[in-house]
């Protein structure tokens, strides 16, 4: 009961911190991978505390399968866009924004978001499919 109350209060802060880590990847330590893991951990915390059954009702498993593929798709599309605008694969400075530095910034942010989506979705899929029904 106490654990459930504290978990309910903690999860928004963990998720906010995860978004901060993803967004500040080019200024400080962290990035898409770490932020995605932290975001996935907040969902896993909910599953551990409230049980697999309730977690399954809240998160549809198909959505997470889809998100895992979507992150890789975002990464690849950004890479191919760079080729489309006369660059090599993942050469962000060729993206059509006003400033090459702005292009690099936005391109890197897009692929960090892609990595984060894939990592957090796959972590949740891991927990749902590896854990047995009774024990977690």
């Amino acid at each position, binding site marked *: 009961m106490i654990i459930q109350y504290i978990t309910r209060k903690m999860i928004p802060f963990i998720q906010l911190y995860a978004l901060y880590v993803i967004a500040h990847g080019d200024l400080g330590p962290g990035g898409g991978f770490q932020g995605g893991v932290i975001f996935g951990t907040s969902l896993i915390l909910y599953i551990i505390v409230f049980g697999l059954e309730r977690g399954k009702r809240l998160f549809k498993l198909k959505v997470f399968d889809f998100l895992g593929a979507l992150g890789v798709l975002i990464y690849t599309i950004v890479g191919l866009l760079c080729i489309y605008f006369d660059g090599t694969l993942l050469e962000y400075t060729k993206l059509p924004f006003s400033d090459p530095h702005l292009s*690099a910034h936005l391109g890197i942010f897009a692929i960090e978001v892609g990595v984060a989506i894939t990592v957090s979705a*796959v972590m949740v899929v891991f927990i749902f499919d590896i854990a047995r029904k009774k024990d977690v």
Partner: protein
Amino acid sequence: MVDLLLLVLLVIFALYAVYETDLLSSVVILSAFSLIMTIVWTRLNAVDVAFTEASVGAGVSTIIFLSALSRTKRREEITRNGKKLNIYNFLASLIVIFTGSVLIYGTFDMPDFGDFDAPVNNAIAPRYIYGSMAELGIKNFVTSILAAYRGYDTLGETTVIFTAGVAVVILLRRRDL
């Protein structure tokens, strides 16, 4: 002094995790091992690696081990010939000791930690350190290496994670639920 203490703690934790027959406490000790490794990375000024070690090594991999533990027994079975000193164990330990001493002998030729004249600090590293700000405008050059200069590797890494997820779904998901 602190480094020596951390090293001793790491060795103690690793041996404990190997020899403990209760798998649950073995997993918890591995998590503590990762936490000590986080401190070691931070002392080596590798903050990004420390961040990854804390979130993945101490966090998610512990959870994945625990959920894998829910599919097996909690105690390790003690094998019969594990404790006896037979000829295979003797040969195996001989090979391990030989390989270890060759590897330690190899480190004598390596440059000191953080040596200014070391090849690794002169060939490609200055290009990343100075080029990150000039070419891309990214302050954290670890991120610019991962996402821009070595972006193809990171694409492969993301694909590996996705493939692992697909493999888990194919092998373990039950359709009737």
